[in-house]
């Protein structure tokens, strides 16, 4: 599957609704230190089912909701929607026939969460299962975060094993 669009709204530093369009081939995301590039990676990890706030540099999940800046007050909800295209190699077997699908995750400051596949409510578990075996989950090989390279070399051999298990 390939990513067609990412829509972020209230997620970390993306206070305003922002749409990122992607295509086949190589897309580079650039900008100064602290402008929000790695936050986009966090948004993808979060939307496809991240459970551990620490993998997103947060202490608690609530930290991913825009917490305000000197120019804007905090928001009460974070939402990320990922739009995928089927490039013929779609892993989620129950979606093998579709040409495109979307996944949405919302978190309210009250602590409530909402999860949607193709705009239909579902559980976090359903989203996470959709991405099993794609290498895109936490600890997978499809998303290489800023620290993963160092981690792989200094990791304990048993920890490294999980990378291969994810692929098996």
């Amino acid at each position, binding site marked *: *599957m390939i990513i067609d669009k990412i829509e972020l709204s209230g997620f970390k*530093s993306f206070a305003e609704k922002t*749409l990122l369009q992607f295509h*086949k081939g*190589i*897309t580079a995301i*650039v900008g100064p230190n602290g402008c929000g590039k790695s936050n986009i990676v966090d948004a993808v990890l979060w939307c496809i089912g991240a459970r551990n706030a620490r993998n997103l540099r947060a202490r608690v999940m609530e930290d991913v909701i825009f917490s305000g800046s000197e120019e*804007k007050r905090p928001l009460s909800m974070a939402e990320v929607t990922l739009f995928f295209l089927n490039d013929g190699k779609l892993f989620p077997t129950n979606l093998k026939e579709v040409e495109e699908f979307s996944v949405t995750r919302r978190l309210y400051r009250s602590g409530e969460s909402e999860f949607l596949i193709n705009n239909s409510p579902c559980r976090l578990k359903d989203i996470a299962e959709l991405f099993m075996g794609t*290498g895109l989950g936490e600890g997978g*090989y499809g998303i290489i975060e800023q620290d993963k390279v160092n981690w792989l070399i200094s990791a304990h051999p048993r920890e490294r094993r999980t990378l291969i298990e994810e692929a098996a």
Partner: protein
Amino acid sequence: TSQRFVETYKKVRESFKELFSRLFDGGKADIILSDENDPLNSGIEIIAQPPGKKLQNINLLSGGEKALIAISLIVSLFIIKKGSLCIMDEIDAPLDDLNITRFTQLLKELSNMTQIILITHNKRTMEVADILHGITMEKSGISKLVSVKLS
């Protein structure tokens, strides 16, 4: 599943050896099971010998060499699983000019079968992108998409 793990491990191993020799322009490397008799639980050791050097504990290698080895291993998994999407966040940071060239060549080849989303500060890595998304924040504390350049 012990069977499947061992099969995947063997394919990744072949791909890793090949990719290492390509990115290092020679030398040899391997990933081995810490305990061959217990593939179901065994850890994975990485051994690597850049060209001209003697085989040593991987920790003695340099920052850039370690990064290239990790990239070889992760991309090998990718190639074996025919992954369609790969997101890389500043993995080119420790690489010198020559290794950036080898890395970007690899990206161009991978991009035929894979969608690659890269975060980078490196101008030469940016040059191989088909599309550039610029993110900005200035002092507002709010991230904005400012430009989408097609190469």
